[in-house]
């Protein structure tokens, strides 16, 4: 199984040890699925980690290490040049849909704008992604 973890899922995973986002990251570390990232996603993650409220809970060094880990251990795909199969209410999300579609991957997110598209594309919250991983075993 392939999955794109939205930036908000990767951030949530660092904030909440017991949450489903953290469990999804654990599942990736344990080899449960192939994690797809792209330069644009990693750049958005780096910017988001600089958000002042996050700086209180994750240091610059830790966020740098996390991005390095993803660059090295996830599957780095090129930023998609094709339009997404469906469009989000927030056009800023469309690259994530295009990235998932171009890599035949599930998009895992906590963003309500994207989750409204779940009938049109495999967009899932982390808890359902975990269920898919369990069922794929």
């Amino acid at each position, binding site marked *: 199984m392939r999955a794109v973890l939205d930036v908000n899922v990767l*951030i*949530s995973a660092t904030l*909440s*040890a017991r*949450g489903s986002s953290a469990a999804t990251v654990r599942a990736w*570390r344990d080899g449960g699925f192939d994690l797809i990232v792209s330069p644009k996603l990693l750049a958005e993650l780096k910017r988001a980690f600089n*958000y002042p409220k996050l700086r209180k809970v994750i240091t610059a060094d830790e966020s740098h290490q996390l991005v390095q880990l993803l660059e090295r251990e996830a599957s780095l795909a090129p930023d998609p040049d094709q339009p997404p199969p469906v469009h989000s209410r*927030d056009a800023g999300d469309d690259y994530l849909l295009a990235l998932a579609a171009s890599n035949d991957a599930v998009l895992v997110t*906590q963003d309500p704008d994207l989750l409204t598209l779940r009938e049109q594309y495999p967009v899932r919250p982390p808890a359902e992604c975990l269920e898919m991983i369990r069922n794929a075993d």
Partner: protein
Amino acid sequence: MPKARTTLTIDEDVLRWVKIRAARTGKPDSAVIEESLRRDLKLDLFDALWSRNDVPENEAAALAVEAQHRTRRR
């Protein structure tokens, strides 16, 4: 964490440096190799974050979406 026995084939010069570090630090070869791998694979990163951060899941999700959107380039 339980330990597992394994067999590795590595370059002789890498093994020599493992043994030098082991002798210098007083640790067994396996500990030197394990520490290097843990550091390289950043296996302790999430453990450190998770031992410190325990934001309720719904608050973590809300903050993460907020951070993503507020810092997004338009």
